[in-house]
């Protein structure tokens, strides 16, 4: 009695179907782990523009999208890329040069905003950021907010606790729900219905998926529903939330996928170097993004040898002998 409809699609088709100029979006993963990079490169290659992005700490993917000129508005908690870049390079440049509009939140606040969207409530409360500039300074003006029905009228609201001093919290911050048009996740296993199994840390992927009108899943392994149903407690995202499933092995490369492969420090450090210089960055993009037509060709360009070197140790889930020789920028 399983859902008979298959949601399997080619990634290029999935992005073309669900991602539009101006879409409100988020991607899964955290800094240098489990970013849906194949989808990120596809978005850049398709020349999609003016995306409004919601980000907790998704590093590599966001920086590439900014570098690709795809993002015009960004609500974000953290733009860093592990040891390759304490602050993501293209993100830093774009903000300093006023190329993107930014609204700052904390990591928990962004997570709660996705959770509110997933739960179907307009806001969730937290004590985080009381007394700080996260409350006092708004990146998006109230006029801009009032004009655009797709963003909340206020960045956040501070209210007195209507239960008095209950839970020792005289005051809380309410952060508004996010319901992206589309979220893209990369997971270890999915089936054709769209059910997802994530191994290791889930970050905010589950909340992001459930908050979104459409979810595109790229997966390392495309399995039969029966396999996932043997252990239903391990499937964090039921198929009812998912619109498209794309089988893309190494779909998070150059970021890491627990138990599958590690991040590629060489790639990320080379990227960070290129990102600092406009000419080098164009060369990088021409070679690795525009110079290939899909993720398979991209991986060929990276080279099978390199992919072999970052293969995860089956017990530990990461490459135990991963070396890096260049620490990128100074901290």
């Amino acid at each position, binding site marked *: 009695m399983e859902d008979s409809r298959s949601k399997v699609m080619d990634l290029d088709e999935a992005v073309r179907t669900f991602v539009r100029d101006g879409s409100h979006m988020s991607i899964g993963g955290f800094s240098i782990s489990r970013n849906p990079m194949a989808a990120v490169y596809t978005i850049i290659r398709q020349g999609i523009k003016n995306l409004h992005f919601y980000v907790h700490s998704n590093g590599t993917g966001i920086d590439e999208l900014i570098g690709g000129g795809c993002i015009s508005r960004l609500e974000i*908690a953290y733009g860093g890329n592990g040891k390759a870049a304490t602050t*993501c390079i293209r993100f830093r440049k774009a903000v300093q040069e006023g190329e993107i509009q930014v609204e700052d939140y*904390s990591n928990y606040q962004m997570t709660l905003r996705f*959770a509110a969207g997933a739960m179907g409530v307009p806001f969730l409360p937290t004590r985080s950021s*009381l*007394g700080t500039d996260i409350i006092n300074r708004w990146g998006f003006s109230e006029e801009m907010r009032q004009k655009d029905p797709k963003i909340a009228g206020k960045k956040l609201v501070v209210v007195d606790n209507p239960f008095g001093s209950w839970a020792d919290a005289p005051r809380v911050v309410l952060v508004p729900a996010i319901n992206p048009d589309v979220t893209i996740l990369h997971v270890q296993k999915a089936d054709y219905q769209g059910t997802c199994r994530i191994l*290791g*840390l889930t970050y905010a*992927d589950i909340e992001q998926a459930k908050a979104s009108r459409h979810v595109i899943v790229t997966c390392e392994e495309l399995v039969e529903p029966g396999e996932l149903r043997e252990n239903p407690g391990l499937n964090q995202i039921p198929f009812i939330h998912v619109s498209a499933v794309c089988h893309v092995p190494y779909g998070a490369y150059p970021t890491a996928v627990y138990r599958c492969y590690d991040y590629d420090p060489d790639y990320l450090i080379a990227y960070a170097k290129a990102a600092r210089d406009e000419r080098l960055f164009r060369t990088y993009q021409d070679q690795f993004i525009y110079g290939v037509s899909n993720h398979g060709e991209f991986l060929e360009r990276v080279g099978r040898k390199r992919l072999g070197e970052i293969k995860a140790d089956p017990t530990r889930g990461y490459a135990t002998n991963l070396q890096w020789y260049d620490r990128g920028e100074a901290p």
Partner: protein
Amino acid sequence: MNGTSPEIMTIMAAREIHNGDIVFCGTGISMLAAMAAKNISAPDSVIFFESGAVDALLEDLPWAVSDSRVMWGANSTGGLMDAFATMQNRITGNRVIAILGAAQIDIYGNLNTTAIGDYSKPNTRFAGSGGGCDVASFVPRCIVFMHHERRKFVRKLDYLTSPGNLDGPGARRRAGLPPGGITCVVTNMAVMRFDEDTKEMYLDRFYPGITPQQVLEHMEFAVDISRARPADPPTEEELRILRGKCDPRRMQL
């Protein structure tokens, strides 16, 4: 003097961690401090990452808090919702000590990790709050690692990302925050703390070879140095464990 500057800073921070503490940390030197404490004096402290990993084994040094290296052998791996709830929760949150970094700090211990210059068009943009504002809002004790420089110890922050004592006595309570926030600053020259009454930073300990006056010269604002005493340098035992057990491949130190 025994130990390099990063080694001294690591040991000074490690000494702040008590047995049973839950230690919120990032990667790099903050994680080394947590590992040093666990190996030296706080065996039942629990290393905790905002990405959702509790009590990671950390047999290899991670590049980021999301790194698969924090998952291996951990007690549990959840997500951001779980991790931040553990800190906002008053039962577990009161056991948390955090280790943070910042681009700027003011006399009340407030931190800027967002931007230098005008926020709307900054001269230098940093990564942003991440979980820093969250943890500084929720937990009773936070250590900040800083390089002692005038441009970092500033009269006025360009952006207040993470709350210390805000604008002084009673300010956290008035804002609706629980007591706590930034309580200790560990630099390459000294250890600074905050006065219980004035909530202002003061010089607590200066390292061998450094004078209180030198510390003041590296800050834009003046602090009380009347309580300042020389720091106990790292012991041979502390350094042996730090070098041998926490970073044997010298990837950080």
